[in-house]
């Protein structure tokens, strides 16, 4: 009788083990689904896109149609002449470059033109692909001083810190007014 009881007990223990194994397998599957990282392509595209957008924007020159008034010859570069002019004359009504904005069609102060140009360029690329982004252009007058936004940050959708986002990295431009750091955050 005792042997029969022992065998039954063993069988019940085996059944319990089977159930535990099944539950463990189920949890393993769930964990595999839950901990699946972002696909490589998504990360590559977001990082690469943020960098390439910023790099292209900084290299872009203002077209002759914008009729920028300046003493220097040649077409002003966004990531050079325009940003430098804006940083220098941000508190003054007039600036050296008075370019016609792509949206307003009016001759604008270099800071207003820069803001309009950034909005126009990003809206036609990242905006048309339904990406959320943030563009910042900040002037650091002297070391240790608080950075000042030379233009209002261009925010579409917004990429706060808690959101999964990628940055273009800092694109620093040395100007007479100080160092201007430009950055672009991109998120889905």
């Amino acid at each position, binding site marked *: 009788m005792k042997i029969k009881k022992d065998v039954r007990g063993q069988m019940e223990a085996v059944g319990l083990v089977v159930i535990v194994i099944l539950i463990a397998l189920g949890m393993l599957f769930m964990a595999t689904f839950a901990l699946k990282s972002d696909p490589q392509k998504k990360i590559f595209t977001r990082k690469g896109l943020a960098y*390439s957008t910023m790099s*292209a924007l900084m290299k872009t020159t203002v077209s002759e149609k*914008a009729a920028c008034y300046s003493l220097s010859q040649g077409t002003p570069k966004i990531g050079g002449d325009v940003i430098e002019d804006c940083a220098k004359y941000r508190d003054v009504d007039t600036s050296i470059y008075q370019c016609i904005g792509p949206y307003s069609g009016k001759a604008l102060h270099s800071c207003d033109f820069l803001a309009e140009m950034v909005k*126009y360029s990003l809206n036609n690329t990242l905006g048309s692909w339904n990406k959320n982004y943030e563009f910042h252009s900040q002037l650091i007058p002297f070391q240790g001083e608080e950075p000042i936004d030379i233009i209002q940050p261009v925010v579409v959708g917004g990429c706060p810190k808690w959101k999964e986002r990628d940055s273009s990295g800092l694109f620093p431009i040395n100007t007479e007014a100080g160092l201007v750091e430009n950055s672009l955050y991109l998120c889905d």
Partner: protein
Amino acid sequence: MRINDMKNKKMTRKGQLQMTETIAILFIFFILLLFGVIFYFRYQKIAFQEKQEELLAARAMESTLKALFMPELICSRGEAEPEDNCLDVLKLNATQETIQQYLDEYYFEIFSYATITVQETYPENKMWVLYDKPKPEFTRKEPTFFVVTLRDELAGTEQPEYGFGYVSVTVYS
């Protein structure tokens, strides 16, 4: 005699009960097993589809990089390092024709089934279709975009003009 009959009947009933219990346990076990098998095959199916998507995405990345660094398109100046994220407009105009001419003989080996276009958004709105070979009856397509600057040597007065645009690479499977 009667006592023996009673004992036999009791034992038979007990045996029947145990058999029903065993059958019920086996039934539940096989139901669970069936659920497991269905779940596993569904998972395998999804995993296979994901793998296919991953492979397509990898091909999209590869094709985009190839297009961005093509010597036929990238901004170069003599023996100096080529400019990154920059395409030469003069080269774009010339390459468009060349790619069409040697599409099957040469470029198909590089890009396979894909469509590559370059779109200028500033100062003008121009578009160049560099490579267009969509897969017949494709089931899936994966577009990838990259923003570039477009150097036009003929547009500027003293220095070349740099426009703003993007490259779109779509791959098919």
